[in-house]
Each structure stands twice: as C-alpha cells, then as structure tokens.
C-alpha cells in the first residue's frame, strides 16, 4: 500500500530532539532519530510502498512496527485515503460564552491607525454610526440575553469595549451590578473585562474595577515617544502624560487587592521601538503583568503599515522575547509575553480549530443600540448583523455565516501546517482586505507560519527541559 506522511511540520530543539506537529490532529510527537527518518522518508510527494520499504530496512520487523505505530497515530496514512468529513457546525444553538458590549462608539483619542475611525471602519458610512452611548436598559437587556443564551455554562464573560470604554462608565456600572444579581439567581459566575486607553481612569473607577476583579487591558504603545507617535488626542497632543500616572495608580491598586493580571496591548507600527525594549519598559517600568503585541492592520500604502521587512523584524524580535519566555519556563516561572503564552497553550492542548475565532459561535458583539454582530468589530455592520439582544439571535444568518467560514471551505488553507491554529485568520481583517469576511487572510500567511514555527520550537524546548511547566495548560 502506498503510504505518505500527512501534512506536518518537523522541528527539533537545540539538544537534537526531533519533533513532528501533525496538522490533521494538532498532535505533537517527539521522535527518536530512526522514527524521525521514517516520517521524513514517507513525506515524499508520492509516498512509499510500506511493505517494500520495510523489506529494505536493516531490521524489517522493527521498521514495520514503527511504521504501524505512525499509521495508528495518524502521522502516516494511505496516499489515496479520503479524510473523514468534519461537521460544518457544532450542535446549534451554540451556547454563548462571551458577550462584548460596545458601550460607546465615541473616543477621546484620535489614534492614527484606529480601525474604528479610519479607513477600515466597516459600518455603513464613515464616522460615528448609531447611538453614541449604550443606555442602561440596553446594557441590562444584553445581560439578560447573555444569561438566557449561555445554556448550562457555569461561567460567562462580559467584555466592555468601545470607542473609549470609560466614556460610558455608567453603562459599565449598570451592566455589572445587574449581572451580579442575575448571576446569583442563576448560579453562574461572571468574569468581567475591558479594554481602555487609560485616559479616564479615576480613583473611583479603579476602585470599582478592582473590586469586581476586572481583567483589564490597556492600549498603550510603549514609552512616551512611542505612545505619542500615534496615540494622540484630537488636538494632536500626545496622551502619555495623561495616562502614565493613571496606569501606575491602577496597577498599584490592583496589586494591593490581588486582582487579575493587567495586560498592555501594543499596536506595532513601522519604525516602532523594538518589542523587546517596549516589553521591558511596560513590565519593569510600569508594572504590567502581560504584554501582547498586535501588528497594525493597515494597507501597505499607509506610512505606518508594516511592510515585509517590518514583519521580518517583528518576528526576529519575537524570537528574542521567546528565548526569555523559554528560559523562564524552564525555571518554572511566568513570563508575560502573552502572544507566545497563548500559542504555547494552544499547542499544548492540541487546538484544532474549525473557525479562526469564536465570533458568531461562543462570542457575539452588541452595538450601542442592542444589535448583535459577529464580534465587536462588526456590530455596526448591517450586513453582518445576527439579531438583537431584544429579539435574540438570527440563527439562520449565524449558521449560514459559520458554514461558509469553516476552515475546510478555505482552499488557500488546505496545504498549510498552521491551519489548526490559524484557520484563515481574523474575519474583520479579511473583510477589510478582501471585502469578504469568510476569506482566508493570505497576505499574512508567511508571518503566521513564522510565528507558529517559533511557537513549536519554543514548545519543544520546554517539553524537553521542563515538561511540568506545560501541565498548567492542561485542559480537562
């Protein structure tokens, strides 16, 4: 029988341990040298005849045994085997896990690269669509909708988003207090989180957020020069001087109260300070627990867009931070490079995604007027509406989108080893780039594969030196 190694990625650590990541299952196997050679030999485009190959080996019985182990584990399969079809959708209606409330579509900053206010805005027309602020009733309706749509999940998450979220703190307070009451009645736990630019953090607000154990992400690009390059007020004045004391107060209060980790979200633009320096500043100088870096999403024609060289440099910088992450993991310590932390967790669990993210599945966004979108980035796009918090989910629209967005329908992803993790990438990005949210984001394939490679190598190094570290990511 003609056999061939399935779609995979081979990698090794510095000690020479060989690994293979199998794209059909997202399994990671460590291999001894002879077994690695078998995997490589059968990776030939036309495969090999299994019996014939075994007969030519120095220890045929042992070779055949190895081959059968690899066949059973799904690493090597018949060339003409048709993959078993995967379900296009999970059993519907899929219970909600997260509701993102866009409590305002206004912002007091005017960041040059913002998708909400720039050319990437996808609502009908430019600028501010719909009501500027979510009223308290819509906020409470949203909580009711989440509770009744979350099935028997013991925990749900509410994320507040904007615009600048804290421009409508009234709605955040109303929603949180109402959610507490409802959760108690229904015996559910609620996890709150928000993203803010930190300009409006006051003592009262910090007190409220830390009391309710909010997961807080601050959008910040780094030190003063980095922050003030793009994150400016409408007047053009930089925002660093306003946010710095407020962030210090937030982090200090949160530490005293033993709150959840506070993260910084950095948008990486062309010409930015190397991420290692920015990471260092945000964790050591300002005290953030986690830092996540997001390449700016913009067309190549913008002067702040990351070109090919920008992505290459970013990947190199990520490599430096990854070395630090691995060193910390080998010592059993936490490291706050959240991009890699998330990737290592997904690799460890063997995540094999049918869809790139939870948008439309476990996560929905709510507009200021209560309309439901696939996620917070689509809430003001009528063509991506999937109902309202008052009338519920338009299940037909939801299912129709999800079927089309399934990774098996993205032919560009068919031969990519990173598909279990990427599944075509962000819907919003695809919509902006190609006018169709269900298309694969082929413009960043190389970046994705480079980053997954980095993750695999980091995972292998940790697995070889301190596998106990990885058990923190075990999923029951």
């Amino acid at each position, binding site marked *: 029988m003609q056999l061939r190694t399935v779609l995979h990625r081979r990698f090794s650590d510095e000690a020479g341990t060989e690994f293979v990541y199998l794209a059909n299952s997202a399994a990671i196997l460590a291999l001894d040298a002879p077994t690695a050679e078998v995997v490589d030999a059968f990776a030939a485009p036309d495969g090999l005849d299994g019996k014939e190959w075994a007969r030519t080996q120095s220890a045929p019985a042992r070779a055949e045994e190895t081959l059968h182990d690899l066949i059973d584990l*799904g690493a090597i399969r018949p060339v003409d085997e048709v993959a078993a079809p995967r379900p296009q959708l999970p059993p519907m209606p899929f219970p909600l896990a997260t509701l993102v409330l866009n409590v305002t579509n206004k912002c007091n900053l005017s960041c040059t690269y913002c998708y909400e206010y720039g050319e990437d805005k996808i609502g009908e027309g430019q600028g501010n669509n719909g009501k500027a602020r979510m009223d308290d009733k819509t906020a409470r309706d949203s909580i009711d909708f989440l509770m009744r749509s979350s099935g028997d999940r013991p925990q749900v998450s509410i994320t507040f988003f904007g615009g600048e979220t804290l421009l409508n703190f009234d709605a955040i307070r109303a929603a949180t207090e109402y959610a507490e009451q409802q959760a108690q009645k229904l015996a559910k736990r609620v996890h709150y989180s928000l993203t803010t630019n930190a300009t409006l953090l006051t003592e009262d607000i910090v007190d409220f957020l830390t009391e309710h154990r909010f997961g807080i992400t601050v959008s910040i690009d780094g030190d003063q020069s980095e922050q003030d390059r793009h994150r400016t007020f409408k007047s053009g004045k930089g925002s660093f001087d306003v946010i710095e004391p407020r962030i210090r107060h937030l982090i200090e209060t949160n530490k005293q109260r033993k709150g959840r980790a506070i*993260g910084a979200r950095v948008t990486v633009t062309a010409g930015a300070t190397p991420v290692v320096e920015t990471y260092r500043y945000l964790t050591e100088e300002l005290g953030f627990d*986690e830092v996540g870096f997001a390449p700016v999403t913009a067309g190549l024609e913008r002067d702040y867009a990351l070109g090919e060289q920008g992505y290459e440099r970013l990947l190199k910088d990520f490599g430096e931070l990854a070395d630090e992450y691995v060193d910390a993991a080998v010592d059993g310590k936490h490291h706050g490079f959240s991009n890699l932390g998330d990737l290592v967790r997904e690799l460890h669990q063997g995540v094999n995604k049918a869809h*790139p993210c939870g948008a439309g599945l476990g996560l929905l966004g709510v507009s200021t007027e209560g309309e439901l979108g696939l996620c917070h980035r689509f809430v003001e796009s009528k063509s991506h509406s999937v109902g309202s918090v008052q009338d519920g989910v338009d299940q037909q629209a939801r299912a129709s989108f999800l079927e089309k967005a399934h990774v098996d329908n993205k032919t560009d992803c068919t031969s990519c080893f990173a598909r279990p993790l990427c599944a075509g990438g962000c819907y919003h990005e695809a919509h902006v780039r190609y006018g169709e949210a269900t298309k694969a984001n082929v413009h960043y394939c190389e970046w994705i594969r480079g980053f997954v490679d980095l993750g695999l190598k980091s995972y292998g190094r940790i697995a070889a030196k301190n596998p106990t570290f990885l058990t923190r990511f075990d999923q029951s």
Partner: protein
Amino acid sequence: MSDPSSNPSDATGDGGPRRRPRIFACNQKARQLAGMVLARRGAARALTQDPPPTTYPYGCTTVFAPGWEVDSGNGTDGL
C-alpha cells in the same frame, strides 16, 4: 524528557524489557490519540481513524487576531 514509562504512546506491547520510546506523545492531543490507539489494540489493530476532535473557539482568536481584544479565555487578562 519525561519518564517514557508513563507515556501511553510507548506502545510496543512486546512484554519485553522496556526501551526508550520511539514515539513520545508530547501534547494533550497526542496523548488522546495514543490512548485511543492503545484501547483499540486491546482488541485488534485498527487501520482507520476517526476524525480528530474539532475545537470551537469561544473568544477572539488568541494568536493571530490583529486586535487581541478578547482572549480565548473569554476575557482580556491573558493578553
């Protein structure tokens, strides 16, 4: 590397002296697959496979979203 004797993929099944495993299941998915293989071998060696379990993510994509506004733990504290 971990003690291979605790690894279900050390499925030589020959009853002989234990040797270094040729294949070591590193992540959770690999361990699940190895467990399935061992269970099947209790009766007969299977030549076909069920489709691997599919993951339906709950939050924003954790690794590749340009935004990372929401993480896969359904919040933002993992960012």
